[in-house]
């Protein structure tokens, strides 16, 4: 996936689009991640200043949500669902196999709402049903 290169000005430009939003801290972090692929370490102070919050509050939000990343992501983002409905059709083994093959690209997912056609995975935002190592490998860029 393609992301912009982080700079303070670029980050502030993202925040400026959310100036009118109420309770915007989480939205701001999500927007920054969408633009740059992750939340840069200097973003915490920027967001705090911009929305008149404490840095502790922003740090708290950043560390609460599984989606938010603090390191630049790799080329691929693979999530394998490891929740019950997918467990019932072999996701535990699939997760092991995928992790062995693609390592750091793989994140645990908890349900993509595709529970009748599991095991399910999401590769770079595209959903895969009846997932296998081959199908996931094919969907990577």
């Amino acid at each position: 996936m393609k992301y912009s290169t982080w700079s303070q000005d670029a980050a502030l430009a993202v925040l400026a689009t959310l100036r009118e939003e109420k309770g915007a801290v989480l939205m701001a972090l999500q927007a920054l991640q969408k633009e740059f692929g992750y939340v840069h370490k200097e973003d915490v102070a920027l967001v705090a200043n911009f929305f008149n919050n404490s840095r502790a509050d922003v740090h708290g939000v950043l560390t609460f949500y599984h989606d938010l990343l603090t390191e630049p992501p790799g080329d691929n983002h693979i999530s394998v669902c490891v929740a019950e409905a997918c467990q019932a059709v072999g996701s535990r083994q699939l997760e092991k196999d995928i992790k062995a093959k693609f390592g750091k690209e793989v994140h645990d997912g908890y349900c993509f709402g595709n529970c009748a056609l599991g095991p399910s995975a999401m590769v770079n935002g595209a959903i895969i049903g009846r997932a296998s190592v081959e199908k996931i490998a094919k969907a990577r860029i």
Partner: protein
Amino acid sequence: MKIYVPGDSAAISVGADDVAAAIASKVGDSTIIRNGSRGALWLEPMVEVETDKGRVAYGPVNIEDIDSLIAADFMHGGTHKLSLGESEKIEWLASQDRVTFKRVGIIDPLSLADYEAYGGLVGLRRAISMSSEAIVDEVKESGVRGRGGAGFPAGIKWKTVADAVSDQKYICCNADEGDSGTFADRMLIEGDPYTLIEGMTIAAIAVGATEGIVYLRSEYPYAIKTLQRAIDIAHAFGWLGSSVLGSKYAFELKIRVGAGSYVCGEETAMLESIEGKRGVVRAKPPLPALEGLFGKPTVINNVLTLSTIPAVMADGAAAYKARGVGRSLGTQVFQLAGNIKRGGIVEMPFGISIEEVVNGYGGGTLSGAPLRAVQIGGPLGAYFGTDKFETSLDYESMLAAGGMLGHGGIVVFDDSVDLAQQARFAMAFCALESCGKCTPCRIGSTRGVETIDLIIQGVKVDENKKLLLDLCEVMTDGSLCAMGGLTPMPVKSAMINFPEDFTGEVSRR
């Protein structure tokens, strides 16, 4: 000529986009409509063609089948090995009682003309002509209960918000459908988003709210896209905005996207998250109905609850409550998932048995191995064996059987399942997703994992089982919300209904 290829993400997950593209490249100027899925997910991608005798279905269609379908003249309903006959006569679908899902899979999700042609906006137009009190009374009278899992009567919640005095009120739709085995919210939003918007607009008029927010999980990117487009179209049409369909009412609707936290499906954690904070559960009281989003009176309902309201308002409370049993009135959208042969959406009146849904509609396991367990109501619901299959699927009967109906998800397992591992997962999931506010949930879940590990390893099995039950009791009684309070349900039900998996011996087989 119209060809329907579902754009539902479950259908896409098994190749519907490729099938749509392949058909488009070969059949020229026909119109391909990306409808929602009718819910027979094992038949996806299910392609339908409009013919003289109505819509004719084929499925599951793979791209390799396109050439032979064209050779069989499927464009005119020709016979092919994938023929399913007339869509309306497919027994699995025709035998259901679709109320909330009546348009899903049939219409073009974003076509307002389709929506109105199939009964959309009738409920809202009627609501606009009524007093707020009369709308609330109608919803109360219908007996509609919260579909998120708790089953609280929607009308009573609305009445509380309607009676509250405030300069600002909110309608929040909880679309944080994080429970494994549930996908009805997603399918409704992807297949018939205007129904949700209509339900929220009616709620707003009933309680005097002018702003609505749909808290939609990030794991549902397709639903986010569809709903945003639907909101934009409804705006342009003059449905949303400063004058709802030309009336004196104003209503604005926005989406807030979640960030991968399960506990944010708990209503007060959801409010915190919408406010941009950590998704930490709030103590109740104050009720969100009185002090909810940004401290203002707020209606919080699940997607299915709100999406059922248009039907209630269009057809009247009496028609709705004629369905169901006891205090569980109307229909429930069951979701058949996991190791299931014919998975998908089964909407039927409350009171249908587990057997009828799982073996009747579901046809048993996908693997063909004997069915050993079902988990009903999401990760916090109970594990049952087949001895409980005559239980009626309604709120009260499920409670009496030691489980809960929850959001209506049913996850099926074959005989390879190890219930001790499932119990361990319940605790581990709670440890991962706990918001951390209260100790029984935050610490108890980790101690739970450790204790189950000892049982699995055969260390002081009886003592540790006793300890685990004690821990479950503390979590049930001492947690603030359902996360910690109900995690013991899968654990205890697994221990009670499948004691042979908790003996500490290496393996049953």
